[in-house]
């Protein structure tokens, strides 16, 4: 069972037109439908704006290449979430290595371009607080509280036991509250 594309909706079913090499229309349907999800989740996972294009590209490339192996046991969304989370983690590791190398060479990391993407004030604040979480806690919090995935789905996406997801979520929420309280205290003190 593979994915089939019918008028932009991706469902489980017959062997896909998308997977046939050269089917550009089906491919574009898939891309246009899922780009907002991939873009949003990658951003929430901490991928900076300057790298979002590259990460989206890698996610879709992996999705396309993995399409033949997709067994249809999971929802398409869950499967894509798995790829996005992995790619975001890979991008984060590459960033850490790059920063460490630059520090070793005594150079400053390049200036990050100003955030040109319009986001709501709430989204910006959440993003700032999420930046203070450990990556694994951030993944769980984003998937559960922002993306509204179920705990079972998150366990499948992250490839870890359900209990681990629960534990990480509990810690992530506690840390989220702590960071916000600390920020509020700092703001109060500066006034």
């Amino acid at each position, binding site marked *: 069972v593979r994915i089939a594309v019918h008028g932009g909706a991706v469902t489980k079913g017959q062997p896909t037109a998308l997977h046939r*090499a*050269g089917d*550009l229309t089906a*491919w*574009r349907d898939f*891309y246009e439908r899922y*780009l*907002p*999800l991939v*873009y*949003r989740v990658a951003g929430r996972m901490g991928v900076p704006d300057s790298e*979002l*294009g590259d990460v*989206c*590209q890698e996610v*879709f*490339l992996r999705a*396309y290449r993995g399409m033949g192996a997709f067994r249809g046991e999971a929802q398409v969304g869950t499967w894509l979430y798995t790829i996005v989370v992995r790619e975001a983690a890979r991008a984060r590791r590459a960033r850490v290595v790059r920063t460490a190398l630059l520090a070793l060479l005594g150079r400053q990391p390049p200036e990050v371009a100003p955030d*040109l*993407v*319009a*986001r*709501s004030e*709430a*989204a910006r*604040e*959440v*993003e700032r607080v999420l930046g203070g979480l450990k990556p694994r806690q951030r993944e769980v919090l984003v998937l559960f*509280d*922002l*993306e*509204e*995935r*179920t*705990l*079972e*789905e*998150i366990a499948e996406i992250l490839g870890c036991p359900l209990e681990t997801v*629960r534990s990480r979520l509990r810690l992530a*929420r*506690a840390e*989220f*509250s702590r960071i*916000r*309280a600390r920020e509020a205290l700092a703001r109060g003190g500066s006034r």
Partner: protein
Amino acid sequence: MTGGERPRLFGAEEDRRLLDRAAAAATVVPERLRLETRRALETRIFSPGRFRGLGLGLAVALLGGSALAYGLVAGRGAPTEQPSGPEPLAPRAGPPALSPPVLEAPLPERPARRKRQPAPIRTATGWSPAEAVGGRFTMLAEDEDALEPAPASAEPRLLIAREGQPEVGLVLAADRVVGRVRGTPVDLTIEGGQLRGTLGRRNVWLWLRGHEASGEIGGVPVRFELVETRDGHQLREGFSVRSSLPYGATRVETTATSLSWSGCGKPLGAIAGGYGGRCASGAESRVAIPPRWQQLPALPRLILLSLFLTERDPAMAPLFGAGQ
């Protein structure tokens, strides 16, 4: 706590509200990112990749090799149709320790299909640029109808004239070199750090990296190294790793005042528009190098010269001469 229960409350109610507002915010993908990413992906996914071609060539070579090994097809002596993919090395003629490895004997040329080609333009030296395109890089295009038109004959030409040997004339148009060497059509392109194309029906595929070039010619691994000498450049066969080219077979050296290569034995002096003089054998030789050639990077320039100047070397000769 399961997904179905969705425990939404944690910490302060304020945190919850903040997260809800952030979750409800619409995602707007920047138009530029959407288009650029899509374009890049479609290029990566739908363009016929060189690796796909390489894989195909490799598969053909493996299948052919296996068939030979199991005696499914006749070996030497019985003429059989051979695949057009990369070919393995031919067995050495002499004692293995003494004779250099030799590239496999050339395949017979396919009769050219000319239904869409313009009438041949005969140049002074008797070769036609239109005829020169005997087959584009076979990993990319098998169909000769899909060939790009050959460049016009007004393009700058490399001429190699040696006493007692047919003249070699090659056209450099943009980054493409076409012509005939000993009757073998040559079509090579320099782009994206690669020198690729065909010599007759053999694929040429060389990666150019800094002062090194490595790849395959007719399925045989080759490697070149460019060495900067005091007043010029010298091209050597790769000696740091295994290469099928024997030592000294393709050595070419240029300076501001001379050109020398292994087959000549004596440097040719600089003359107007190139180099000329007598080789060690006493044969008069002249190499006309147009300014356009001199603008090429040293590594591909010397590799091209090496291929065309040493075409009679025992290691290189089987690549050429199909038309002789």
